[in-house]
């Protein structure tokens, strides 16, 4: 097993409020890992802490066996890509500018161009709207830009925060279709979803987060066996 990301004993939070309590997590290269669980229990906080947007109170985050520096920009440069919740696009930039920002740290222009073509192939809609400003896009289109921008970094690990949040079922299908394609190409992905059913078909490893730590972890097969446990947490 080739470990790509290793998180050990990570605690973090907002100002005086501790949200994460010593979380540990390992991600295998080329796999899709899902973090599931009810809202408000620290899933997004975990991604932000790993990405460096929130300070690490205790613990270590390692990528490819080396500890990451604290600053978010340096972690991004090291190959850690976060597609944040609510897209966080550059609203006054065009779709294409947003995508190019995703490739900000890359220097090989030809390779960037190839990734851009890949994104446009994956989301043809974005190609149509490449010159439009992000603030004029629909919710689904924004999500596509967000994911596309994440792809542009060609990072080692893409972390996607709630890709289905607030979207119509048809769009959700498209988004997950795209994630499947990415996963099939060998992209390592860490995805956060409230509802495990959406990610069940994509991910190979699952962690259930509750109260700022993992209450349950297991493989896709284990998940299928443990529907009772999940029900208590997710009320489903």
């Amino acid at each position, binding site marked *: 097993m080739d470990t790509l990301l290793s998180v050990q004993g990570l605690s973090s939070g907002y100002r005086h409020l501790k949200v994460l309590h010593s979380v540990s997590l390992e991600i295998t290269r080329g796999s899709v890992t899902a973090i599931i669980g009810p809202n408000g229990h620290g899933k997004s906080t975990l991604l932000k802490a790993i*990405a*460096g*947007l929130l300070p690490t109170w205790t613990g270590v985050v390692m990528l490819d066996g080396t500890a990451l520096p604290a*600053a*978010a*920009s*340096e972690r*991004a*440069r090291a190959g850690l*890509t*976060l597609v*944040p919740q609510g897209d*966080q*696009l*550059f*609203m*006054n*930039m065009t779709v294409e*500018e947003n995508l*190019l*920002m*995703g490739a*900000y*740290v890359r220097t090989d222009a030809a390779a960037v161009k190839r990734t851009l073509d890949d994104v446009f192939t994956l989301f043809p809609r974005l190609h149509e709207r490449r010159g439009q400003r992000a*603030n004029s896009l629909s919710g689904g289109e924004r999500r596509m830009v967000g994911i596309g*921008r994440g792809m542009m*970094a060609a990072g080692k690990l893409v972390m996607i925060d709630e890709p289905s949040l607030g979207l119509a079922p048809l769009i959700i299908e498209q988004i997950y279709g795209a994630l499947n394609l990415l996963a099939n190409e060998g992209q390592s992905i860490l995805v956060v979803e409230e509802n495990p059913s959406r990610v069940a078909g994509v991910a190979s490893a699952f962690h259930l987060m509750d109260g700022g730590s993992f209450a349950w972890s297991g493989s896709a097969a284990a998940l299928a066996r443990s529907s009772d446990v999940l029900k208590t947490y997710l009320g489903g």
Partner: protein
Amino acid sequence: MDAAIQIIITGLTLGAMYALASVGLALTYGTMGMFNMAHGMFMTIGAYASYSLSSAFGAPLPLALVAGICAGAISGSLLHLLIVRFMLHTEDFQTTIMVATAGVAIALQDLILKRYGAYPFKQPAQIEGSFRLAGTAISYQSIVIVAMAALLIGALAWLLTYTKFGLAIRATAMNQDAAKLMGVRTERTYLQVIVIAGVLASAAGILISSLAGLSPAMGTDPLIRAFIICVVAGLGSVTGAGLAAIMMGLFEAAISYYIGARFGLPVMLGLVVLILIFRPAGLFGRMEVVRS
């Protein structure tokens, strides 16, 4: 007809100076939410640096200009490295930074007064003479002012639109966190922004002093105007600030001629107030960026 040409010339000259003075301010506000009260001092420092070099060492004009602009860049980076950097992410940054930069401005203005005195020196960086256009005399200095402003603002616009460097600045302005996630070293971007503001302001200072002469307090009036232009434009809108400055220059010149010179500024300010009341985000601003 003569009057109309004269108004346009005056309007463009004033507008060009205002634009240079305000674009940097708009950029700093737009990227870091900072009202830089020392922005006027960048102008003063640029003007005095260029004056000192060419009068004391007899440096040729272009060199003196470059020196003035460098002085602006240095002041900008020092302001960031010594002060702004430490305050940037603190609570109430918007108000505390005003006081801190005002403190810088008070001290710098005093130092310049001590070093140079209050005598209004002539700025050597200027070109004398004029030509006639349809009976109206146009000074070469006005042409230089408009050309230099167009050049610098054009360069900035190109930088912001077409380079990776500019893309990073705009990204930081729009969404600091997202910019970091793209690998943008935002702290460095802030430094770059203040340096750019320093460069533009010192260029503005050199041009303004070519008309008004040098004095330690020369930056005060342009600073106030620059603040107001930034409001009309919509805070943080860089192209808006440039356009608004030209419009305000033309407006002021026209009001001065048709209503009376003393009403040029107040009527324009009245318009600003009305514009804001009916278009709260300014002429070119975007609601979602600034609404609290």
